[in-house]
């Protein structure tokens, strides 16, 4: 599996993503500067976490017009798996590859901690190595992760199984207390209609080795490997 990781000015989780990819696939990931214009030869593209362009104006607002974006749009529309983590999720909503938006955390605080998530759809290319309803622990580190969308969009996401991960407590219940940012319906990650684009606020790439406090994120990359090899 050949994975490309796009670096914007201000990305900070690109190296973590590349390490997680290499640990799982045994092949180094390709680093792609945002000014490049081709994604030829890649099986998967990762938009990493960070603060692209300083999050000026809105998170993801300027990254959305980077020179790499037209190639990214073509790659996604052709069914190529695109994984947007944290800031990458914000970029994907700004690109309209995913519906809704991510706004300031309801509690105003930047939240940096390990959270519990429930796998809501274990049949996507990003989640096939998990079980439906499984609890996993990923870290979060964001100030603007409050997912908002219209009630119709939310109903559609739920109805079509496009909520991939939800914030839950240790018992797996999506409570207000376990929701770190006020996201609608405790949503942590969503899929596009074709299920080849995932946006996720938590960081599986920072939970890809037990020494980091959790190894649960590793299987997200194993899922991609299985999906691409299939």
């Amino acid at each position, binding site marked *: 599996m050949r994975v490309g990781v796009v670096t914007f000015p201000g990305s900070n989780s690109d190296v973590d993503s590349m390490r997680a990819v290499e640990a799982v696939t045994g092949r180094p990931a390709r680093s792609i500067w945002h000014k490049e214009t081709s994604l030829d030869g890649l099986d998967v593209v990762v938009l990493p976490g960070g603060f692209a362009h300083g999050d000026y*104006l*809105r998170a993801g*607002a*300027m990254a959305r*017009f980077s020179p790499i974006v037209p190639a990214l749009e073509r790659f996604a529309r052709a069914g190529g798996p695109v994984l947007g983590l944290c800031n990458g999720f914000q970029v994907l*909503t*700004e690109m309209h590859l995913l*519906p*809704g*938006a991510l*706004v*300031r*955390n*309801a*509690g*105003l605080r930047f939240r940096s901690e390990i959270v519990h998530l429930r796998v809501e759809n274990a049949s996507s290319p990003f989640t096939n190595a998990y079980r439906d309803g499984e609890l996993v622990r990923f870290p979060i580190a964001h100030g603007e992760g*409050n997912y*908002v*969308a219209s009630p119709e969009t939310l109903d559609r996401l739920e109805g079509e199984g496009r909520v991939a991960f939800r914030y839950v407590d240790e018992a797996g219940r999506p409570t207000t207390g376990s929701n770190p940012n*006020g996201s609608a319906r405790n949503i942590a990650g969503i899929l596009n209609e074709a299920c080849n684009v995932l946006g996720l606020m938590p960081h599986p790439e920072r939970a890809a080795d037990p020494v980091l406090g959790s190894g649960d994120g590793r299987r997200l990359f194993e899922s991609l490997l299985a999906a691409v090899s299939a």
Partner: protein
Amino acid sequence: MRARVEVTLKAGIRDPQGHAIERAIANLGYEGVRNVRVGKLITLELTGPREVSERRITELCEKLLANPVVEDFAVLMDERERESPRAGEP
């Protein structure tokens, strides 16, 4: 001509900053202040005929300056503050 663009969160979107300011106002002892909302003010200068500028600024708001999913925008054009054109520009 100069334009002022106001970007505000849509009515249904929670504004934690506005809420925090509202609490601070109450803590200062002021009564009767409600619905505090925080937005952005962007000022810019455009050259060219007014109708072209108006079209351009609306397009820019929709594309970049505001996210129509969660934000509204309002544009105020002010021709009086027009600055003299730079050399080489129309």
